[in-house]
């Protein structure tokens, strides 16, 4: 075993043996699941913690009086008395605001509506009021045009779009946009968290060795670069171990769940998902299976798993290596963890930037120009490319992946070189607060 191997082994074994590793491995997914569960729950049930907004309406024109839609989010009450309703009496009546429909208002000229309230109107409430007035006007116009309510109802249609992707032979395969989104987001979140968690671990390890002065003994046996790489590799192995454990457990868990809930139906579902097009829902119901289940399974089968898993590993390792070397350099440049902030910003900024854009721009348009460039630029690519990965058509877009991975490898070689230079000088510097200018000088010191 070479020196790097020996150091890697020590970093790995001392961390994996710790109780906290075991606890985090078990508790980590639970905590993340609970965390996202709460966020999703609150987002879906947006009425939680909110009272019905009561709005007092004074309709001078009588055009829409009594026609605004009420529900538990927002309710309208009507009055014929506008003046003298100051904020006190609004509060007393439990109203959040009042709406004035002017005298000259009519459905063909819906201008001059005024909303007054003590607190500023939220964008959500503003849109809601707008929409309800518009709906009321629309209904009014419809009835003036002589469209009956049943006719109106029959206008409403629901379409479920079956999205297919074409391969190079023009063969259509069904794909699930929702599933692709979940997988892409999941993979990029895992990479994001791991780069952060383990990068910071690398940094802490470096600081620990520096403050303990162990580093002086070690660098009289091995080169600083070997020490740095051993640490980086050791933690990469810890991360991979954790992921493998999670994958194995979730595999077992999924097996158990599908066995309990679906049992022998699984075979049926697989068969159906295999048949090119999904059969009509009623036919499925006859067979006693759930159409959503079939969609999920056929979506899962449409995903190019070897590509997703391979690119996950490449981007996970590439991104981690690129960033953790920088974290190691930061650790070497400071004396204590409290001094790290000024150097952390340029590292954390691109990470936060890419996860923020992944959840918005990239998800909305995975094959757009911005998504393309973010997945090519190495500082953002490990996170952004994983969001795009399930949406890519490898037959035509393989070069994007190749270019992105090529650049990532080039960049991590560069950051490791850069970090090695800073690390070499930094680990033996004590009591001096380094500045960016000094770090720059360290790059050119003679070994």
């Amino acid at each position: 075993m070479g020196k790097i191997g020996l150091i890697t082994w020590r970093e790995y074994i001392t961390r994996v043996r710790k109780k906290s590793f075991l606890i985090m491995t078990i508790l980590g997914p639970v905590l993340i699941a609970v965390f996202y569960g709460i966020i999703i729950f609150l987002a879906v049930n947006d009425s939680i913690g909110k009272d019905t907004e009561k709005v007092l309406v004074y309709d001078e024109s009588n055009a829409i009086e009594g026609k605004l839609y009420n529900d538990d989010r927002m309710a309208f009450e009507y009055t014929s008395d506008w003046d003298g309703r100051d904020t006190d009496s609004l509060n007393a009546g439990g109203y959040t605001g009042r709406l004035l429909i002017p005298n000259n208002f009519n459905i063909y000229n819906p201008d001059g509506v005024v909303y007054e309230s003590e607190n500023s109107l939220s964008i959500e409430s503003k849109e809601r009021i707008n929409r309800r007035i518009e709906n009321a006007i629309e209904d009014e116009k419809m009835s003036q045009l002589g469209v009956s309510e049943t006719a109106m109802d029959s206008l409403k249609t629901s379409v479920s779009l079956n999205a297919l992707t074409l391969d190079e032979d023009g063969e259509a395969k069904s794909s699930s946009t929702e599933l692709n989104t979940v997988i892409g987001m999941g993979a990029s979140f895992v990479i994001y968290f791991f780069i952060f968690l383990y990068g910071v671990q690398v940094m802490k390890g470096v600081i620990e060795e520096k403050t303990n002065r162990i580093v002086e003994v070690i660098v009289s046996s091995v080169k600083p670069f070997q020490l740095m790489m051993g640490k980086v590799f050791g933690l990469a192995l810890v991360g991979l171990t954790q992921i493998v454990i999670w994958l194995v457990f979730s595999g077992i868990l999924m097996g158990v769940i599908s066995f309990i809930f679906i049992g022998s139906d699984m075979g049926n579902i697989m068969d159906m998902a295999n048949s090119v097009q999904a059969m009509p829902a009623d036919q499925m119901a006859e067979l006693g299976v759930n159409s959503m289940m079939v969609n999920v399974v056929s979506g899962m089968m449409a995903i190019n798993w070897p590509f997703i898993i391979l690119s996950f590993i490449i981007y996970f390792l590439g991104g981690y290596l690129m960033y953790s070397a920088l974290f190691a350099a930061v650790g070497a440049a400071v004396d204590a963890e409290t001094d790290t902030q000024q150097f952390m910003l340029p590292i954390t900024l691109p990470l936060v930037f890419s996860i923020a854009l992944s959840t918005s721009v990239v998800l909305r348009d995975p094959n757009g120009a911005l998504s393309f460039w973010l997945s090519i630029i190495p500082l953002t690519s490990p996170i952004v490319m994983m969001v795009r990965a399930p949406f890519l058509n490898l037959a035509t877009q393989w070069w994007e992946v190749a270019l992105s991975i090529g650049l990532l490898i080039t960049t991590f070689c560069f950051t490791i070189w850069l970090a090695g230079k800073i690390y070499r000088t930094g680990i033996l510097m004590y009591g001096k607060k380094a500045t960016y200018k000094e770090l720059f000088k360290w790059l050119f010191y003679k070994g």
Partner: protein
Amino acid sequence: MAFLEVSNVTKGYEGHLAIKDLNFSIPKGSIYGLLGPNGAGKTTLIRIINQITAADTGEVVFDGEKLNPSHIARIGYLPEERGLYKKMKVLEQIIYFGRLKNLTKKEAQKRALHWLEKFDLLDWKYKKIEELSKGMAQKVQFILTVLHEPELIILDEPFSGFDPVNTELIKDEIQHLRDNGATIIFSTHRMESVEEICDYVGMINLSQKVLEGSISDVRNSFKENEYEVYYRGELNGLSFDAKEVSREDRLALNKAVFVIEPEKAKALIKELNDTVDIASFSEQLPSIKDIFIKKVEEGNHG
């Protein structure tokens, strides 16, 4: 024959020279005291020998060869600022460092157990470093410095943190290692220990070497021809003038100090012997500590 030869070595850090044109010659199988006040450049020199950093100019020759990375495994270094992995167990840690110095796992384990037994630490081998007392941790640090049987051992303040009993233990071990052929560089401020165990000294002040030589040569070259005599009786009618005469109540003796040419010492003894009862007569050689202080002050004022 010199085991380590440092020739014209200069090393600068932005704007100031840490060491300037240093020349040292460290004889094989000796204990060499490297002295110098804080900031004189001792650590820089040690780091150059350890190849943690490189000299700007000059050359270091290790056992007849130009210093190169293959020598690292033949050097053992105990830094002044001690450091061990606090969460790692004693035996495991010693083996780890031994393996970093190219020992096999088996060999490292064998030697580690041998040393632990010698230092009475066998019961602690599965304990974490953080559970050990400071003195015990220091012993562990000493073990991992010498585990790979280095030919050159660099000890930076090896006795700090030890009680007198353990200091003796370590001192014996150092001498034992020397007797087995190792060359030892011993960097310290504790001058008493230098006189006790070093064969040679070299002194750095303000980045430069100020003196070098065997302990006796150095002391002799600084002697001021002072002779000290303890006696009973009164000094009367001597042809030599005493520099000072005093009463040592502690010893119930009188004491006189003479400054004379060495060749006149015999005549002085004769005269003294005729007048008083001599309890002791000795030539006063300056201590390494006095020389050190003198040299440092000279440097700072001149």
